[in-house]
C-alpha cells in the first residue's frame, strides 16, 4: 500500500502545527519521522489516523484520494497506530484489549473470547511478539504493553503501522526485539512510520528519514546522514551531542541511603539493601535495565512508597516515614518517571502545572488565596526560559506535545530552590536540542552545589551526565564506577556481574568480579542497540 500525504495543514488557533506537509510512504519501507518537540509529528499522524481533521490537504491511498473522519475509517483502509501515550484499558486482559473495537460475537451476542485469545497467540508467534493473552494489562511491563498495541494494530490488518515514539519507554533489549519485529513486518511488504528522538535508532532501522521543523518538511534523507547532520537538520543549528561539563567539586553529603529495603505492590523485595550517597555538587546516575528497582528507589526517597528497612537521610535529617510534602519541603526536586501519570495534571492549565508543588507558598499564595497574576507571570517566564512550545499558558497541558510536557515538569522542578534533585528518565521524549539544554541546566545545578541523582535507562545519558555511576541489578547496587568505565564493564554490572553480598563498591574502584566470574555469560540482555 502506497500512502501519500499532500499539502496537509492543521492549525490550532493561531498555531500552525502542520504547514503544507507532503509525505510519501512507500510499501515495504520503514520511514522515520524526525523533528523537535512540537514540530507536529504526532499531529500529522493523528491526521493520518483520522483522529483529527486537517484544515487543508489530502490523503491518497494507492492513487485514490480518501478522507478519514474517524480512526475507524483509517483502520479499514489498513492503517494502524501505536500512540505516544498508550491507549490500553489497564484492567482488561491482553485478549480483551485486542478485541476492543472489533468485538466478534458468537450467537446471542456473547463475546468470542476464545477466538480473540487464539488470534493473539497466532500473531505473537508469527512476529515473535511474546505476550500472554490472559495477562491483565496493568500488570505488564511497558515493553509488553507496547507489543499488545502492535498486535492490536496487526490484528486489524494494518498495512501501514504508525509507531509514535515507541522506544521511549523500552529497555535496550526490548528495543532490539522491536526492531526485529519492525524489520520482519517490512520484509512482509508492510510499511512503518517510525517516530523517535534517538538518532541512533533512526540510523539503525530506517530506510528513509523525513525531517520536520516547525510544521514543515525540511528534507527527506537516508540513514547515511550522520547523527550530527540529522540533529542540526532537526533543530536548525548545530547541536552538541555530548554534555560539556567540568570536573565536579563534591562537598558535604546531601543524600545518604543506608541498607534501604523497599517492597513493591505485591510485597516482593525490589530494593534490597541499597547503600550509597550523593554529595553536594556531584551527579550520581543510576544505570540499569528498567525494572531493577530504580523506580521504587526514587519513590522511596520521595516518601511515595513505604520503606521496609534502612535509612534515607537528606542533609542529615532522617526522611523515612515522612510524607512527600515534607521531603519536597526539605529542598528536594523530583521528576517522576511517568509524566502523564505522576508528573502532570494534564487537564490543568500549563500555568497551574508549573505550580503543582509550590501553590501553597509564597509568592504563589498569600495565606489561603492563590495569586493568579503571579502564577501567570511566573508561568510565562518559565515556559520561555525552558523553551516549552505552547500557544497559551492557559491551555491544558494535554495540548502540549509529549516532549514539551516533559520540559514542563523539568521547568517546574528546576526553578525552585533545591538542595537535592532526583530525576527519573529526565529527558524521556525530549528532542536532542532540548536534551542538550536540560543537561546543561542539570550540570548548572550541580555546579551551584546541588546534589543530583539521575535514574536513566539510557546509557548515553548516564555516561555523559554522571560523575559517578551506580549500577542496579535486581534491587542491588552491583557497582559504583566512574563515568570513564568501559561500556562493556557497565554492561556486565547491569547484568548482575559483581553482585556480591555487600552491594556497593567504593567510588573510583573498579568492580572486582568481572573477569572469569560466572555471571559474565549472562550479560547478553543488556546489549545496546547499534
Amino acid at each position, binding site marked *: 500500500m502506497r500512502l501519500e500525504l499532500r499539502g496537509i495543514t492543521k492549525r490550532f488557533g493561531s498555531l500552525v502545527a502542520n504547514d503544507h506537509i507532503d509525505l510519501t510512504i512507500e510499501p515495504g519501507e520503514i520511514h522515520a519521522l524526525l523533528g523537535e518537540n512540537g514540530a507536529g509529528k504526532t499531529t500529522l499522524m493523528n491526521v493520518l489516523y483520522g483522529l483529527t481533521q486537517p484544515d487543508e490537504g489530502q490523503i491518497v491511498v494507492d492513487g485514490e484520494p480518501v478522507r478519514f473522519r474517524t480512526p475507524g475509517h483509517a483502520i479499514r483502509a489498513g492503517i494502524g497506530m501505536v500512540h505516544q501515550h498508550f491507549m490500553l484499558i489497564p484492567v482488561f486482559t491482553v485478549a480483551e484489549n485486542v478485541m476492543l473495537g472489533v468485538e466478534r460475537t458468537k450467537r446471542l451476542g456473547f463475546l468470542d473470547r476464545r477466538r480473540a485469545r487464539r488470534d493473539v497467540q497466532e500473531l505473537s508467534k508469527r512476529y515473535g511478539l511474546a505476550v500472554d493473552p490472559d495477562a491483565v494489562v496493568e500488570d505488564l511491563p511497558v515493553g509488553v504493553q507496547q507489543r499488545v498495541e502492535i498486535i492490536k494494530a496487526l490484528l486489524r490488518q494494518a498495512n501501514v503501522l504508525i509507531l509514535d515514539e515507541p522506544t521511549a519507554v523500552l529497555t535496550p533489549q526490548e528495543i532490539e526485539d522491536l526492531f526485529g519485529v519492525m524489520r520482519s513486518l517490512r520484509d512482509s511488504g508492510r510499511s512503518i512510520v517510525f517516530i523517535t528522538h534517538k538518532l541512533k535508532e533512526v540510523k539503525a532501522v530506517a530506510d528513509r528519514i523525513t525531517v520536520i521543523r516547525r510544521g514543515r518538511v525540511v528534507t527527506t534523507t537516508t540513514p547515511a546522514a550522520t547523527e550530527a547532520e540529522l540533529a542540526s537538520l532537526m533543530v536548525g543549528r548545530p547541536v552538541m551531542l555530548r554534555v560539556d561539563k567540568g570536573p565536579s567539586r563534591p562537598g558535604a553529603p546531601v543524600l545518604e541511603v543506608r541498607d534501604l529495603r523497599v517492597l513493591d505492590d505485591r510485597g516482593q523485595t525490589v530494593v534490597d539493601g541499597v547503600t550509597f550517597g550523593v554529595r553536594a555538587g556531584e551527579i550520581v546516575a543510576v544505570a540499569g535495565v528498567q525494572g531493577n528497582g530504580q523506580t521504587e528507589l526514587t519513590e522511596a526517597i520521595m516518601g511515595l512508597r513505604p520503606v521496609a528497612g534502612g535509612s534515607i537521610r537528606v542533609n542529615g535529617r532522617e526522611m523515612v516515614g515522612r510524607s*512527600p510534602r515534607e521531603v519536597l519541603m526539605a529542598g528536594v526536586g523530583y521528576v517522576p518517571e511517568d509524566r502523564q501519570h505522576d508528573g502532570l495534571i494534564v487537564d490543568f492549565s500549563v500555568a497551574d502545572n508549573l505550580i503543582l508543588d509550590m501553590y501553597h507558598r509564597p509568592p504563589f499564595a498569600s495565606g489561603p488565596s492563590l495569586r493568579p497574576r503571579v502564577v501567570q507571570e511566573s508561568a510565562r517566564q518559565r515556559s520561555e526560559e525552558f523553551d516549552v512550545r505552547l500557544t497559551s499558558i492557559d491551555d491544558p497541558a494535554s495540548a502540549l506535545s509529549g516532549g514539551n510536557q516533559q520540559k514542563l515538569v523539568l521547568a517546574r522542578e528546576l526553578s525552585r530552590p533545591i538542595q537535592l534533585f532526583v530525576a527519573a528518565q529526565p529527558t524521556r521524549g525530549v528532542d536532542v536540542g532540548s536534551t542538550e539544554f536540560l543537561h546543561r541546566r542539570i550540570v548548572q545545578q550541580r555546579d551551584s552545589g546541588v546534589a543530583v541523582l539521575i535514574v536513566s535507562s539510557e546509557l548515553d545519558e548516564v555516561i555523559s551526565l554522571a560523575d559517578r555511576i551506580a549500577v542496579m541489578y535486581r534491587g542491588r547496587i552491583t557497582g559504583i564506577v566512574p563515568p570513564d568505565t568501559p561500556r562493556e564493564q557497565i554492561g556486565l554490572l547491569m547484568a548482575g556481574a559483581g553482585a556480591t553480598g555487600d552491594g556497593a563498591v567504593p567510588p573510583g574502584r573498579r568492580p572486582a568480579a568481572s573477569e572469569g566470574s560466572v555471571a559474565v555469560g549472562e550479560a547478553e540482555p543488556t546489549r545496546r542497540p547499534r
Partner: protein
Amino acid sequence: MTSTVATEERGGQLPPQGARRPSFGRWGRAFLDAAREGNAVVVTILAIVVALFIGALLIAFSTPSVDPKWAHFFSDPGGAIVAAAKAVGNSYYALFQGCIVSPATISAYLAGKQPLYQIFYPLSETVVGATPLILASLAVTVSFRAGLFNIGAQGQIITGGLLGAWIGFGLNLPPGIHQIVCLVGGFVGGAIWGWLAGWLKARTGAHEVITTIMLNYIAINLLTYLLNTPWFQAPGSTYSISANVDQSAVLPHLFGPNLRLNAGIFVALLCALGCAWLLNRSTIGFEFKAVGLNPDAARTAGMSVAKVAILVMIISGGLAGLAGTAQILGTDFNVTPGLASELGFTAITVSLLGRLGVGGTVMAAFLFGALNAGGTLMQASTGTPVDVVTVIQAIIVMFIAAPPLVRTIFRLRGSREGGEGQMLSAGWGG
C-alpha cells in the same frame, strides 16, 4: 460539507443569493458554530429545548381533554392537533405563570383588585424553591470536583437540619444570634455526616458512594426515631413532627409576610460566592481539583489525598446541612419526616446540569426551582401532572450528561471532551 447544518438552517430565512446577509443570519451562524464546536452553553440550551419539546409530546398525549380527539385523528386530524397544541400551550403558559409572572395579576393590581405582592408571588416561589437546592447542589459540586462522589447529600441535609432545628427550638438566644448559631449548627450537623464518609475513605479506603448511601439510611432512621422521641417531638403531639423553631431563629422574610421569600437566599448566594473562591482562587481548592483530576500526580506533588478527602466531605456535608437548615428556618419552621424529600438527589442532577461549575450550579438550581414552582401551578390549573416537570428535568440532565447524544441529534461536529466528563468517568474507577 462542514456547513450543511448551517445552510439548511438558514435556508428558510435568507433572501435569495446576492442580498446582503441580515444581522440575524450572522447571529444564527455564530450560534451554530458555537454549537458545532460543542460549546457548553449552547449544548445546555439545546438540551432544554429538546426536553421541553418531549414534555410537550407527553402533555399532548396524556391530557384527558385531548385524548378522545386522537381517536378521531384520521377523520379529523386538525381537531386533534389543535386540541393538543392548546393543551400544550395552556400547560406551558401555566408553568410560566407559576414561576415568573402572571399577566392576570398585573391587570388585577392595576384595576386595584389585588395587592402588589401577588405579582411577585411566582418569582418569590421560584427563589424559595431554589434556595435549598443551591446549597445542596453546591455540596455535590464541591465533592464531585474533588473526584469524590458524595451521594449522601440527602443524609447530610437531614443531620444538618436536625441539629439546626434543635438549636432553633431547644436553645434560647436573642434574634440575630440565634439564626447564626442555628446555621452554624446546621453546617456542623451535615459536616459530621460528611466527615464520617471522608474519614472512612481516608482510613480504610471504603468507597464514598457506598458509605454515603449507607449513611443516608442511618440519617433517615435517625430522623424517624427523633420525631417519635419526646424531647424532640412537638409538645403534646402524637404525630411525627418536631416543635416549631423559636421566632428568634426564623430567617426573616424579605418582602413582608405574604411572600415566602426570605433571607435564606442570601445564605445560599453567600455560600456560592464562598465556593467560587474556594474552587477558583484558593490553595485548598487547587488541591481539591488536583486530587479530583489526578490523585497520583497530586500525591507526587506533596498533597495529601486522605486529608483532601476528609476536608472535601466536611465542606460538602456542611453545605448540605445548611440546605436542610435554611429550609427549616426559612419556610418549614419544623422538622417532618419529609425534611429532605428528594432534595439530595435532585441536587446531583442540578450539579451535573451546572456542569460542576459554581455559576452553572446556581443557575441550574434557579431553573429547577422555577420548574418546580411552575409545575405546582400547572397541575393545579390545567390538571397536567407535575410529573411532566420531573420528566423534563430528567431529560435535560440526560442530554447534558450525554453531550455526544445532543451532538448527534443536531449533527454537531465532535469536539474534545471536557475535562469534567473525563473526571466523572475516571472517578468511578478509583
